[in-house]
């Protein structure tokens, strides 16, 4: 079984003070740790579990700058067989459409039974590339998948809907499945795996290799247009109880007492 996993390197902004760049079109990346997008990490793990269970081959693919090789190497250290980076400044800065088109051109030229990717990127939050890619490849898709079972030429998945409801769907292969966090327990790479992966080749492809002309790639190939980034307007927000942990806690304890909770 041949599995392609689309992964993205993203900055970890969970506890960071995010600063906008001076052009208002990006954020300041300096000082932000880079890591594999969380749900992509679960997608990678799912591919490795399938590979171990039924003899498969896993190719990881990303679109991004050279720093993204780190994510590909870590994926190989965990057990991915091949790695491809769509490596061309012309491909960067695109919206979900442009990213999906580049991926579709690359994956369309490969043999594959299953394409896995995370359901959402934690940086841009688009929740869009996986399904767009499926439609461009002309194969079925399912999103927000929290359970998956491979059958004979088919895959049955559980999609997480609202309120804890799960929708089970059966699809023929090949198919694109977008993976929700929590579906498995992503492994850590071994020291030996990391050492071996450091020597592995990462295949690169340019826009020209993908037969994409200038108008189809990156920002020029985007259907939506990024106009400007801003900080969210500061709302009324919480009344902040300040001081040392002890002082702030004393204030909060009093608030809770007034309200009858303490």
């Amino acid at each position, binding site marked *: 079984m041949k599995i392609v996993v689309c992964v993205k390197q993203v900055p970890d902004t969970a506890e*960071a003070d995010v600063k906008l760049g001076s052009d208002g079109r990006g954020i300041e990346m300096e000082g932000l740790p880079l890591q594999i997008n969380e749900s992509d990490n679960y997608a990678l793990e799912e591919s490795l579990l399938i590979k171990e269970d039924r003899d498969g081959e896993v190719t990881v693919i990303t679109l991004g700058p050279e720093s993204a090789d780190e994510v590909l190497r870590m994926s190989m250290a965990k057990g991915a067989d091949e790695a491809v980076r769509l490596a061309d400044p012309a491909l960067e800065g695109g919206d979900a459409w442009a990213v999906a088109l580049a991926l579709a051109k690359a994956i369309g030229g490969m043999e594959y039974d299953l394409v896995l990717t995370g359901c959402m990127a934690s940086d841009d939050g688009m929740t869009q590339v996986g399904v767009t890619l499926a439609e461009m490849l002309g194969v*079925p898709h399912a999103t927000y998948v929290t359970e998956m079972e491979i059958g004979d030429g088919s895959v049955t998945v559980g999609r997480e809907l609202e309120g*804890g409801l799960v929708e089970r769907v059966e699809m023929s292969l090949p198919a694109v499945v977008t993976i929700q966090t929590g579906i498995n327990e992503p492994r850590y790479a071994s020291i030996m795996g990391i050492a071996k992966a450091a020597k592995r080749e990462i295949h690169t492809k340019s826009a020209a290799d993908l037969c994409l002309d200038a108008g189809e790639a990156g920002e020029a190939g985007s259907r939506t247009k990024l106009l400007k980034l801003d900080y969210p307007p500061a709302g009324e927000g919480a009344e*902040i109880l300040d001081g040392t942990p002890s002082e702030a806690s004393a204030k909060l304890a009093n608030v809770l007492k007034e309200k009858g909770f303490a």
Partner: protein
Amino acid sequence: MNDVLVLAEHLNGELKDVTFEMLTHARVLADAGGAKVAAVLFGSGVGDLAEKLTAEADEVLVRDHDGFANYNSAVYQPVLADVIRGREPSVVMIGHTAFGVDLAPSLSVALDAPLATDLIDLAVEGTDLVATRQTHGGKVNERVGFGDAAVRLVTVRPAAFAPQAGSRGGSVIALDTDVPQEPAFRRFVEYVEAAAGDVDITKSDVVIAIGRGIKEEENLAMINEFAELLGGVVACSRPVVDAGWLPKDRQVGSSGKTVKPKLYVAIGVSGQFQHVAGMKSAETIVAINKDPKAPIFQAAHFGIVGDLMKVVPALTEKITELRA
């Protein structure tokens, strides 16, 4: 401006809240652009739902067909694409839900139309429409345009707009668009309800919720002690369930449970909209988080910016002292 089209989402005979939220905002857009609001309703035996929508929409376009008995984006997509080609609306609004996210991107490719997802705002600016969405976990707002597209597709974040009951008295129009058979390549199998757990977090007056900031499973002991002191139950946001530290039935948020306790204490919870959707109606919300920019402080009434490992023990001590 042409019509504003809103795709009605429903399950088990009930329209989702996001449908009414979108219709309310669609009215604002339509009024600004001198256009009409049309709701599109696909389903099987949905006549009464169509009637409900007439209060909000100028036209309710209904395709009532067995093929829509269960949601399947592979069935919805070609039918909706046909309706859109026929009406050429300026904008099509779809909920940013598990349903909408499965449908909208494939519709975008089928129609070669731009799609902006998870919007918190959409406004008419001159002759253009400009979308606002959030990136980087709610720390950045992004404004997005649609170029010179005639038809724009958007998915709208649930609870981004406050719904207002209308009294439009719109007309119901039955469509006869072809509905394809469910394709063999994607078949609906079944819905599976979540299993009930040992604790029903929706029944408690006090909910103590933990998030990614809890860092280690062993820190749960401190939280359990704090919750016991306040007579509350321990709930959580998604990362805690993903890590396997609490069962799924303790998760608060759009894919988990919606709670409305008298007191909600969010500890190390960043406050992604999916979580906030499940707790924003709590009477008193307290947030403890070391990141002053965490979106949870926008949802909370009281906040402490600090390390939960220091604040929670201090708070436990202060409450114990007050009671002594």
